[in-house]
């Protein structure tokens, strides 16, 4: 949009001299240089991810198997949520460029309108990322299992609802015959991970032992991700055999044979590095989006107060726009290299 100067440019705009490199303003050029350096940081992170993935001998988590949940709707929607996030960010980039366009026409109302839309889009994206993190940390219904032969498999299927825990041996607080009906799923996954479930019985925190009244899991599939001996990489175990193997592990009473969710030390999706890169890369990007939203809000205040209108141009909107588009640009790459390939 190289406009043609129609009036004389004052000395301040000309970087205090008589020339302005690349016919662009100081602020815009510096924003570009900052973006190049920031782009290099993100390249470094993504290429480090590629390096780790290439030197890793086992199987690396696959995007469409790892990210397949939607809020309120459950599992079975591979990549739809991330695609939605991508779309939200692209749309907020569009509203930003429309704000810049309105600024060129000195249309203050238009700039305000599109800036507000951009900020809303930004908040939606940050919120989506918060949900995704929460989901990633808490994990799936089934977790990742270590089978009898030592191989490890991720598990897909429909989790049967837990009705209650019926106490059969009294502990410190609960008496025989009492039924626990609250926080069942949470208790259950903790007990399974800790090896406190044995032959359909769960040992609760107060030491009481209870019978687990639970509907059967259905549609189960185990996909082998780590070699043990019996299975090949990527083998899929289905049907009754899958249910039998899974129940065997859950009811073994051994700790750490089922891992749920993710932290910095281990995760159910794949190697330790995978979780760390997930947190670092999407976290660093999310932080950029958050800063972008904050900067956009500051600029919006300027627009509403007429600061830029008095100045005679909306270049500040253009400069924050550059940053905002950059954040979108980074996400395009994160989307491809973290989720798609």
């Amino acid at each position: 949009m190289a406009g043609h100067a129609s009036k004389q440019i004052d000395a301040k705009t000309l970087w205090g001299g008589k020339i302005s490199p690349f016919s662009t303003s100081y602020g815009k050029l510096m924003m570009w240089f900052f973006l190049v350096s920031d782009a290099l940081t993100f390249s470094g992170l993504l290429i480090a991810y590629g390096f780790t993935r290439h030197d890793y001998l086992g199987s690396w988590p696959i995007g469409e198997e790892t990210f397949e949940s939607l809020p309120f709707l459950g599992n079975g929607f591979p990549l739809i949520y991330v695609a939605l996030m991508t779309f939200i960010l692209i749309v907020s980039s569009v509203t930003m460029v429309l704000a810049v366009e309105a600024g060129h026409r000195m249309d203050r109302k238009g700039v305000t309108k599109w800036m507000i839309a951009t900020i809303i889009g930004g908040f939606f994206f940050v919120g989506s990322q918060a949900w995704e993190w929460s989901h990633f940390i808490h994990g799936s219904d089934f977790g990742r299992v270590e089978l009898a032969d030592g191989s490890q498999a991720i598990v897909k299927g429909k989790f049967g609802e837990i009705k209650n825990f019926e106490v059969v041996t009294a502990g410190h607080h609960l008496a025989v015959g009492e039924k626990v009906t609250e926080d069942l799923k949470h208790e259950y996954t903790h007990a399974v991970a800790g090896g406190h479930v044995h032959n359909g019985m769960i040992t609760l925190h107060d030491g009481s032992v209870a019978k687990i009244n639970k509907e059967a899991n259905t549609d189960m599939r185990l996909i082998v991700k780590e070699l043990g001996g019996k299975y090949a990489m990527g083998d899929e175990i289905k049907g009754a055999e899958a249910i039998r193997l899974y129940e065997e592990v859950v009811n073994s009473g051994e700790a750490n044979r089922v891992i749920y969710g993710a932290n910095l030390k281990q995760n159910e999706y794949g190697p330790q590095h995978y979780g760390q890169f997930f947190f670092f890369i999407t976290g660093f990007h999310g932080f950029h989006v958050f800063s972008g939203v904050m900067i956009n809000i500051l600029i919006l205040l300027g627009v509403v107060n007429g600061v830029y209108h008095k100045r005679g141009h909306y270049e500040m909107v253009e400069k924050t726009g550059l940053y905002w588009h950059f954040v979108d640009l980074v996400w395009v790459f994160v989307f491809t290299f973290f989720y798609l390939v």
Partner: protein
Amino acid sequence: MLRDDIIEYSLDAHHSEEQGVKLRKKIWKVTAILTLITAIEVVIGSVIKQADASWYIVKWVLIILTLVKAAYIVLSFMHLGDERKGLRYVILIPYFIFALYLIYILITEGNAIAAILTEFAS
């Protein structure tokens, strides 16, 4: 009067209503393209499995689609396509030299380490 000490200047990029209509049309066109590419990527990604023999090609298709998307964002939304040629190259060339070098060196190194680990494991 034409003066040679006043240079073309993007700061004065005000445009008229008619130009605005044209620009907005272009913006919506780019939006449609970006959305379409994202949709195609997701469909390809969820239909074709990584274990498939054709995955190698799919991977490159996805990477190329990503670069097309990135080019649209940088050149159209960030208006780099409208800036001076010199500015364009000052931004893109150093970046691409560093990024391509880093990709080459680290992917090669990653593969080499995998080869060594495999050798010692067996």
